[in-house]
């Protein structure tokens, strides 16, 4: 198993770039959609498409390559607080995205699927509230990703 460590490490680092890195395009895509409301729904659907087809499957693979690394290096997870914390944050991030971020995004897509009624002065209150929640969710997720990378690179303690 130890001979597989370099392979797992390459896949793990590549996975971090490809799975989590792709999400850093989302705020810009959403921002572009907000500036051009006729494309807002498309922007949200594009974000969902990237998440469903790319980010989520690869985020799960990231967990598997992480387990491969733990097994390959023979690390005692329970005796390695920084790794235990990193794995916990990873589980929190995946749960948060599945139960909070994506449902909110899918509801936003449904709400923006039809143009607002004529004469509306701005987006409906629910759209505004959910857009604001989406921004907050993004900030939380980015903080979680940065914290996980910090733990994995610095291995504190």
């Amino acid at each position, binding site marked *: 198993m130890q001979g597989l460590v370099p392979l797992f490490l390459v896949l793990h680092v590549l996975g971090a770039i490809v799975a989590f890195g*792709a999400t850093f395009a989302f705020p810009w895509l959403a921002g572009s959609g907000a500036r051009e409301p006729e494309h807002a729904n498309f922007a949200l659907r594009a974000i969902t498409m990237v998440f469903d087809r790319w980010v989520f499957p690869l985020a799960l693979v990231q967990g598997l390559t992480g387990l491969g690394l733990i097994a390959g290096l023979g690390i005692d997870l329970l005796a390695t607080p920084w790794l235990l914390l990193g794995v916990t944050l990873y589980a929190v991030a995946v749960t948060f995205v599945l139960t909070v971020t994506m449902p909110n995004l899918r509801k936003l897509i449904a709400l923006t699927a039809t143009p607002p009624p004529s004469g509306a002065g701005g987006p409906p209150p629910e759209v505004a509230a959910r857009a604001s929640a989406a921004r907050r969710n993004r900030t939380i997720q980015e903080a979680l990703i940065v914290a996980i990378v910090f733990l994995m690179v610095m291995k504190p303690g």
Partner: protein
Amino acid sequence: MEALTPWFLLLHVLGAIVAFGPTFAFPIIAAAGGAEPQHGNFALRAIDRVAKRVVWPLALFQGLTGLGLIAAVEIDVSATPWLMLGIAIYIAALAMSYLVTTPNLRRLIELTSAPPPPGASGPPPEVVARVAASKRNGMIQSVLIVVIVLLMVVKPAF
């Protein structure tokens, strides 16, 4: 300087995630735009915006943290073939993006900024050719990024 190594490494890894990661979303965003031509130009402009505001500045910053790491760890680059090759591929990827990929994308944005003339049965031949070139460029750059990561992680001895 050696004490800064973990910090340069952290910035280098985070930089790789934030700078190069979004480029892997581009083909999906572009394909979504291609499937809904009324949003095609928007999709291309959104990609260009991410490239200009996120990918480019951080890809250059990535070079700086890389230099910081080399200085902190006191690596002799000329005696480290895997690192020399990695740096050469990084420069090649930047040059390709600046000279080939970005101009092609900007020209596509220009070409798709107006709807096709009435009666047109499909996109103009130049758009088709540039979309194909864009796909090819994206694939080449993805391969270059994967090779760089492979070299930086495995550090193979030649």
